[in-house]
């Protein structure tokens, strides 16, 4: 029983991180049609920066903690913006054939290679700054609850941003119809780069705040992005509400199965989830079916 409670908290927390990855994928997808394979690597990069830059003894909520949070978020957002700009450039060529698949994976590989060259292929463990709370005779790090809160905050912020602000509305217009937005005089390129930056900022925040809950290692990057994609698909690609709900459900399932069958069962199970969802409901559980255009 106690173990189940811990699985519940940890599963929901890990799931909230998948939700955040899925939401950041959605932000880029809605503005550009690109699924950014480098998104997982950006999360790892954020963790590495946190490891390198957070002063020892900094308390959560303290000035040095807040400053590092700001710096990590901004720097990862800038990296994402640069990566986005580089991804979007060749897509303007008429002979482009989904070059983004190559360029985003290549960006992930290059970022990973730089990390290995600078800090080596080791797993970084981030300090738990949020303390622990007792649960059923054991102690659980608070960070799992904090990332759930973070997912909610990011979700609400995006919702508000895309409805209240002109830039947010313009981004929303891109997601409705890219061609029409172009024809309507919206300069799409800066907005699309902005979408990459926002997605990068989300990963920066997630890596900084939730870094303790995940392994910070370059080789896990593709796992993170694929899990994030699975959550995005289950929630309906482009649909943040769906991603917010699907993440914890997915995290819980993974946590429970790896508790029962060992960690090696995690990825095969994730594969089974995505295959079943796509076979039964390709538009996702929360997505709306589209009438096919002929």
């Amino acid at each position, binding site marked *: 029983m106690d173990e189940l409670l811990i699985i519940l908290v940890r599963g929901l927390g890990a799931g909230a991180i998948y939700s955040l990855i899925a939401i950041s994928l959605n932000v880029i997808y809605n503005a550009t049609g690109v699924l950014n394979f480098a998104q997982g690597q950006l999360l790892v990069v954020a963790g590495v920066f946190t490891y390198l830059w957070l002063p020892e003894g900094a308390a959560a909520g303290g000035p040095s903690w807040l400053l590092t949070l700001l710096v990590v978020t901004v720097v990862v957002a800038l990296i994402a913006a640069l990566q986005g700009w580089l991804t979007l450039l060749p897509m303007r060529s008429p002979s482009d054939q989904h070059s983004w698949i*190559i360029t985003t994976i290549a960006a992930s590989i290059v970022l990973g290679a730089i990390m290995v060259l600078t800090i080596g292929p080791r797993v970084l463990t981030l300090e738990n700054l949020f303390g622990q709370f007792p649960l059923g005779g054991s102690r659980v790090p608070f960070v799992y609850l904090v990332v759930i809160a973070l997912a909610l905050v990011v979700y609400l912020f995006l919702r508000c941003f895309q409805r209240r602000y002109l830039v947010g509305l313009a981004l929303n217009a891109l997601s409705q119809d890219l061609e029409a937005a172009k024809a309507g005089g919206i300069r799409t390129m800066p907005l699309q780069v902005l979408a990459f930056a926002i997605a990068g900022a989300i990963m920066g925040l997630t890596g900084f705040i939730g870094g303790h809950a995940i392994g910070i290692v370059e080789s896990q990057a593709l796992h993170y992005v694929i899990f994030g994609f699975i959550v995005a698909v289950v929630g309906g690609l482009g649909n943040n509400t769906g991603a917010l709900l699907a993440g914890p459900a997915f995290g819980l399932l993974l946590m429970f199965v790896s508790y029962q069958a060992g960690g090696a069962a995690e990825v*095969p199970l994730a594969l089974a989830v995505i*295959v079943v969802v796509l076979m039964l409901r390709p538009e996702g559980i929360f997505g709306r079916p589209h009438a096919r255009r*002929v």
Partner: protein
Amino acid sequence: MSNPVLTSAEVTAPAGRRNLLRPDIRREVALGIGIVVLAVAVPIVAGNAYWLQAILLAAVYVVAASGLNILRAQAEQLSFGQGAVMGVAAYITALAATAWEHPLPVAVLLGFLAGMAAGMLLALPSLRVQGYYLGFVTMAGALALPEIFFLFEEQTRAVTGVNVATSAIRDVAFWRTEWLTLVILLCAVAALVVAGLIKSSRFGRQLKVAGTSPEAAMTLGLRPGRLRLQAFAIASLMASVAGVLYVLLIQYVAPGSFTLALSIMLYFVVVIGGAGTIVGPILGVGVLYLVPDVALASLVDYRLLIYGITAFVIMFLMPDGIAGGLRRAIHRLRGRTAPAATISLREVLAQAPEAGDGATAAARTGGPLLRAEGLAARFGEVQALDGVDLEIGRGEIHAIVGPNGSGKTTLLNALSGLVAVDSGTVHFDGEDVSSTGASGRARLGLARTFQTPRVFADMTVWENVDCGADDGRTHWFAEALEAVRADWDELPAATLPHGQRRFLEVARALRRGPVLIALDEPAAGLSVAERKEFSALLRSVVAATGASVLMVEHDLELVWGTADRISVVDAGRVVVSGPPAEIRHLPEIGRLFAGVNHVAG
């Protein structure tokens, strides 16, 4: 079923026999074979075992990448599972040869079959999802494979890996050359030839059509799902062969040899090398494997950095890959610009047999060619079709007109089987086709064109015409087309102006000998002269083939001057139907045709 349009049952001799490989593709295959043979021969002559081993592994990758190339470029299926298929074949071969104690030939066969099975498993999602969804699913599969090996550690020896003993295949066949070297070389050459054959064939074009536009494929009688599975089968076959060769060459397998990184590299190899080209996989393997892994082996720490940046830079400079970029550059150097192409159907239609052959006469007898009753279809809140009744006579040009959003195109889609209706029946040529899908209806002789012509830009005009299902029906039009085949095979379809693309689509439809041709806004985007020509074309098509024409059209002048019968659709219902002369004074017509001057007079 009697089909009045068929004039002869005998099958024309397959004209493709004389050139299984198109001349330009034959040159490319020859170039590819030359590169591979040379690359293997040089280290043998130089006696450099290290380089020979590297080149042979590169050749193994070329086999797997050539298969993926067919899947990616010919069938337009996004798969990141090629390395996983290779891994399953390799791993099972190794286990069968050691733990299960089978002789090597048996082990190779088992490994090959296991690879095929894994490949077809990865192919199943393609029946349901496409594009990046498929990419991510196959990627998840490739990511899961090493973990699955670890899950069954006792059976797979995942922690230590499996050593496979050298066998007779590594004996010297002649002068410094092992049998294995010959086998790998042979497989690489075979992979290039198969790629060339598929690219030259109608089957290859069918893959292309099914991948690019499944709707168009169905209206040509093709079954896109089956074609996708066939493409996956070919790709899996090459990956399985590559997996078996890998074991024989490296003599050791471990889960770490077949991670997602291998699948990603194979995908990169295809796209960076030049998707859809024969030599692309060779160039890709050279740039992404031989250079960073072997030539720059001293910079091993920077391997991934070099690899990633190379991929990035090439995508920037040559969006269609190295082979595509080189071809572009050569064309520019030669100053070759493609002329604006024109095609004419007039000379082909002029070869129509005399009307006395009975085709037209037979066509006028019997019941209506198509009868739809009570068709209803709802999309969410929209009742697109609300009980449509429609009859199309034999040899009749039937126009459907109506305001935007009245359900005209949905009606066309429902009749051709592209949209499933909620209720109602369709009888076509005396048969109840209500539950027959689009490709089944196309096989019964229902052809269809689209509002935006489905023209495949990287094929020639002829290839665009000759990409439907081979259902063995021959027909004078198909035979008459042979006269223009050589000319049309010289014209790249990409150079066709819009109006010409319409004619191309009509030619493609007619080539299948249809009894009914459904046209969706055929005059949209045509010039005044082209509209006149198109109107005349429709008339002569009906006269020459006896087929009926059903068109949805906004150009009311064209409709008024061409159609034998007009049906007015509004809010998902047919409100008026009849010959132009009978319906011209009805108020519904007046409202709709208000802008057309000569209607009143």
